[in-house]
């Protein structure tokens, strides 16, 4: 087959496929876009189990703009942390049930925790997110390591330590860099002094 007829076939095929898509879409309708559906709404809450040792559950109820609950949608949860600056760190994802509720287990580190829930949006509703300060009972709060909020009798020492150690490190760096610089400088100076005093040029180094 020569090249020209092949090109004609390709063009024809493309036109047929395009026409088919347009006709089909006109008959059954284009897929709904998220912005057409209007923004969804997320409402955050906490459920605490009456049974000891079971973790509390953070819930997010997802509804569309009309207030209808949305099931089968993925909701991402994150919590506000202060690690190298304030940011939200992921704590998990869940899919909404038939009541539009997505929930995850969450052991809080504090009685008040900022939680963010996010829904990316789909053909039923636009993307949305919600942030809420949730309150947890004191008996479910888990403390795994010393925190700033815990008062310590050693606080004066703890406060001074970073400054003291930083000072020591800076002093050490000055000592090391100074040592290298001084050694090179003194060595060159000694050579220059020798040359100046005796008029002797550089001699071969070694033993």
């Amino acid at each position, binding site marked *: 087959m020569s090249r020209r007829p092949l090109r004609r076939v390709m063009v024809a095929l493309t036109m047929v496929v395009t026409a088919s898509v347009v006709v089909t879409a006109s008959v059954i309708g284009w897929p709904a876009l998220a912005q057409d559906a209007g923004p969804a709404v997320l409402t955050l809450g906490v459920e605490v189990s009456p049974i000891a040792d079971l973790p509390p559950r953070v819930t997010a109820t997802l509804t569309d703009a009309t207030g209808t609950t949305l099931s089968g949608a993925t909701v991402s949860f994150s919590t506000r942390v202060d*690690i*190298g*600056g304030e940011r939200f760190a992921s704590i998990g994802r869940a899919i909404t049930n038939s009541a539009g509720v997505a929930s995850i287990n969450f*052991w809080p580190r504090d009685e008040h925790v900022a939680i963010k829930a996010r829904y990316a949006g789909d053909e039923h509703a636009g993307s949305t997110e919600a942030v809420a300060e949730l309150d947890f009972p004191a008996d479910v709060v888990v403390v*795994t*390591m010393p925190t*700033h909020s815990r008062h310590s009798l050693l606080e004066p020492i*703890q406060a001074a330590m*970073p400054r003291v*150690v*930083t000072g020591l*490190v800076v002093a*050490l*760096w000055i*000592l*090391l*860099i100074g*040592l*290298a610089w*001084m*050694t*090179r400088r*003194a*060595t*060159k100076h*000694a*050579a*220059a*002094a*020798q040359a100046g005093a005796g008029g002797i040029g*550089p*001699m*071969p*180094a*070694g*033993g």
Partner: protein
Amino acid sequence: MGWRARPGPRERASTNAPAAQGSLRSLATAALAPALQPGRWSRVLIFLLAVPVLAGIAAYGYQVANGLEVTGLNDDVFWGLYTVNLVTLIGLSYGGALVSAILRLTDANWRGPIVRIAEGTALVTLAVGALFPIIHLGRPDRMWEMFTRPQFDSPLLWDMVAILTYLLATLLLFGLPLLPDCADASQRSDVSGWRRRLYSWAAADWQDLPEQRRILRRSMTILAIVIIPVAIMVHTVLSYAFSLTSRPGWHSTIFGPYFVVAAIYSGVAVVILAAVAYRRAYRLQRWITDEAIRRLGYILVTLGVAYGYFMFTEITTEGYVGEEAADALLYVMMLDRYAPLFWTFVALGLAIPTLLVAFRRTRTTTGITVAAGLVVVSMWLKRFLLIVPPLTQPLFGDAIGGYSPSWVEWTITLGSVAAIPLLLILLFRVFPVLAVHEMQEIEADADARSGQPIVVTSVGGSP
């Protein structure tokens, strides 16, 4: 002294001066042999080592592109091979620097042929080891935030500060004694081009004047004194990353000294391996003697016994109390899942090296080299046992975690292992492998003590 060529390098005022000059020239030539006459096998070795290094770099690129999910790390075991490598390599470096510093301070007269190799080993193992905290980051660009948003309460920040400080000190420990050797090298007729320019710059107008020798000796003494606490600090701070964590197996008061002894133990072993490799490759038996290797073997076995003592103390203290979490950890480590690794370490890392050095029949250079090789590999295994099993034990509930390193982690690990000899070879393709000036000084001191007159001669000129 074992390396001593007769007559001494500081030539006696006698008739055998030409012979001594020849001896000095042969020492200087031997020290520069890896740089000036590397041999064809050296290029082959560089190529063979470069392949795994490049594979490791490619694997790291893959990890950066795809995130840490390509590793075997998970919610339970969040520190794996990368942390094992970090602790191991910093430890290896530590041993090299301490061997050099302690031998200088104690004026051990057999140190001469060992110190340069020990300092070079310290430098390259540290340079490779210091990369692992960055490799371990899913977002390496965030390393910058250690400087812009430092958390002064975090041991990890101080880890970085300690490692950088130690890197600076190790650079000086390697660089300062090079002054006279570079001056010697720059005078050689077979040195030209960039090498000559580099050596001349590094020599800083060194003319072997008494004043210059005094300055260098004083600087090296200060540096040797400073580097010992710095090195101890580095490894203690590294241990804080574990011991300041409320986790069974880690939260232990013994961890600081435990890490320090482990570091010197494995560090001395790698110095032995490097010294034996160079001695064999460049026929340096005349300088790096059996006696020097044997003395390093004694240090190795002493540290091995000390490490065994620390391990026994740690296990006994934790196991005797019978606290539930500690019991469970010791059980999986000694009798269950990790028992094969643990007992392999006890046999290959402690028992066999001790026996090899203890018996006269096996206390040969070959025997000590085998012992050192076993120690290096076993200590890596011990770091794995120290880091991974405690993480598999649950802090809540009873779900046991697991960890299986991925091919990415293994490839990067193999790349780093190959990078150490590669960098060492490249380092000594540039700088003298033996501390010529220091060996001469030790020799001269010995001659002075024996009351024999000395006269200064030059070793410059052609080889």
